[in-house]
């Protein structure tokens, strides 16, 4: 990359915004197509070849709709929430290494930044739910807060474990350490921590919960809370929340790829890094879609029990185990 510094950053940020926009639009298509296949029906077929233009039609439809601010709602916060929900996801992607040199900003506290921004998502949904002045929205907002607080803890414990194994917060550095064949990926670094696959599973579950995806979709819970925190949102206000959900999935899966699956490292040494990164990323995204259309929603206290009684103790145990391993070897 030979662009001078401010332009380079600008180009990257534009690229990231386009990436998020495209992903949000086409993950909806993947979701609908995938859901269709799981349910033995074709999914969208009408708009464009295999329904490929459907996301664009949806976006145009949402953009033409009026953004209604319900009377009695806190208009400022109500309008602010969709912005606050999408911006952190964009920020997170700025430090994700898509390839050896394909990263907007290499920051040596990347991991910290990632989770700092990742937590803002909760606040945005809470603001949205609270500002709507709708009982369903407020119930949903309260649920989201307790859910995300509960799942932030095991997730951060897992991240600390990874931090001890890798010894750096620089995401690109973490990826470089996993060079070589797939058994060099952190997922299979059993010498550093024999429970590494378990750690990955915990991270994956926490990621599902953090992004409010089924089976932990307490925020939306359409059969209980109508549309949860987004009940009062219409048009693109709702659309932005929708985009943010997919952007967060992409971020979550990207972090999982970087931390556990070797990021842009190729397992067989051919093809550019970006290809492998995206392949791993979308494999994870697909599994997220798969889970959604397979399982019913968990009960709310079941969800909290899972976090406090199962995930946190196991995450703590793996943390202690890897610190012992680190000390011994």
């Amino acid at each position, binding site marked *: 990359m030979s662009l001078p510094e401010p332009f380079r950053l600008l180009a990257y940020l534009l690229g990231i915004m386009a990436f998020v926009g495209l992903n949000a639009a086409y993950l909806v298509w993947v979701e609908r197509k995938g*859901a269709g296949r*799981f*349910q*033995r*029906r074709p999914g969208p077929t009408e708009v464009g070849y295999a329904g490929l233009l459907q996301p664009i039609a949806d976006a145009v439809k949402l953009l033409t709709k009026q953004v209604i601010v319900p009377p009695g709602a806190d208009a400022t916060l109500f309008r602010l929430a969709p912005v606050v929900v999408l911006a952190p996801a964009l920020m997170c992607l700025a430090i994700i290494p898509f390839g050896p040199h394909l990263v907007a900003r290499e920051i040596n506290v990347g991991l910290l930044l990632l989770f700092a921004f990742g937590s803002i998502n909760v606040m945005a949904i809470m603001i949205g739910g609270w500002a709507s002045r709708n*009982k*369903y929205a407020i*119930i949903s907002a*309260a*649920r989201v807060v307790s859910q995300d607080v509960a799942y932030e803890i095991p997730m951060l414990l897992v991240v600390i474990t990874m931090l001890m194994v890798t010894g750096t917060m620089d995401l690109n550095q973490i990826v470089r350490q996993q060079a070589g064949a797939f058994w060099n990926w952190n997922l299979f670094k059993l010498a550093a921590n024999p429970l590494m696959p378990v750690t990955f599973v915990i991270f994956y579950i926490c990621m599902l919960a953090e992004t409010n995806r*089924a*089976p932990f*979709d307490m925020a939306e*819970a*359409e*059969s*209980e809370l*109508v549309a949860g925190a987004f009940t009062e949102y219409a048009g693109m206000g709702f659309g932005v929340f929708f985009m943010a959900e997919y952007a967060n999935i992409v971020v979550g899966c990207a972090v999982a790829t970087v931390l556990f699956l070797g990021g842009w490292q190729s397992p067989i040494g051919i093809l550019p890094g970006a290809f492998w990164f995206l392949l791993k990323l979308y494999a994870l995204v697909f599994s997220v879609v798969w889970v959604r*259309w*397979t*399982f*019913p*929603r*968990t*009960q*709310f*206290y*079941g969800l909290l029990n899972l976090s406090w009684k199962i995930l946190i103790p196991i995450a703590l145990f793996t943390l202690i185990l890897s610190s012992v391993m680190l000390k011994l070897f």
Partner: protein
Amino acid sequence: MAVAQGKAPNETFVLNLGPQHPATHGVLRVKLTMDGEYITRAEPVPGYIHRMQEKMGENRTWAQYLPNTSRIDYLSAMAYTHGYVGAVERAAGIQVPPRAEYVRVITSELNRISSHLVWFGAFLLDLGGFTPLLYAFDDREKILDLLEGITGSRLTYSYYRFGGLYNDVDEDFLGGTREFVAQMRPRLGMYRTLVTENIILRKRLEGIGVITPEQCRKYGATGPVIRGSGIAYDVRKVEPYSVYADFEFDIPVFPEGDSMARYLVRMEEMGQSLRIIEQALAKLPDGPVMAEKVPRVLKPPAGDYCYAVEAARGRFAVLVVSDNKEMAYRIKLRTPSFSNLSLFEEVSQGMMLPDALALMGSLDLVIPDIDR
């Protein structure tokens, strides 16, 4: 579960569940008094789709009222028509030929399976699992096609007539039904492994929404709801109507009383219905499907006549009061959903909102059946 009972009004809030809410499957309104996510009081407010079904019976002739019966519980239209037709036949003293009775049993049981399949899909939808709905509707589609072939209608059949049937079944129907029974068995097995044994589903249903046999008696609940509470009451066994006495089948009973028990009862019932259909197909006699000499204008002798059937949701009883005229003096419909809904207020007390919705789903309410 810590529940705050008797809290000051300013510590609770009222949440209107419905009349437009995805979980009530229709225009049922439930006024919930909530303490956080816990329900302190749930007051059902039915009546949004009240159509005066009983009153309508008083100002149209016996035959004219027949199509109404398909529209009370639209998901088990066959059984409801059976109840009404049975009551009028009892009043007018009409003997139904055996072939008609067998076909009535076959179609009623097919209808029961299709009703349970809709419930299965919708219940899982309540629990947040979308996919089973489409699988269930795939199976239901086959039943609807079969019934459409003989009745000309897919939902509101009005297939039974006083003294028999609208028309005879053909080979397409009989062959198709045999095929369906053979196809449906493995499908039920698939539902068992894919859905019933799912850990999330079990955690959401087991021990949740326990209904005691005393509560069932108190509110006159019926159908799979009481069979899930350990009461082996099924009209088909207790007071066999039509030709149900000729068949071998079991009444699935689960003593736990929780939502899982009600779920299992319905899943088992589908298998039992298949058994009945198989036997009825094997034994199906030849002969007419309509009694001879059924008067065109019925004037049943004065008196009260009652006929009860086991519909998909429980005991459906029709009481007709005749005063020897062309129209009924009074028609009273005893519908299962209404009494099952009555349970909700007491049982849902102190439950969390999602659990209460799972309970409501397990009661399998059909709103026009409540409001009539």
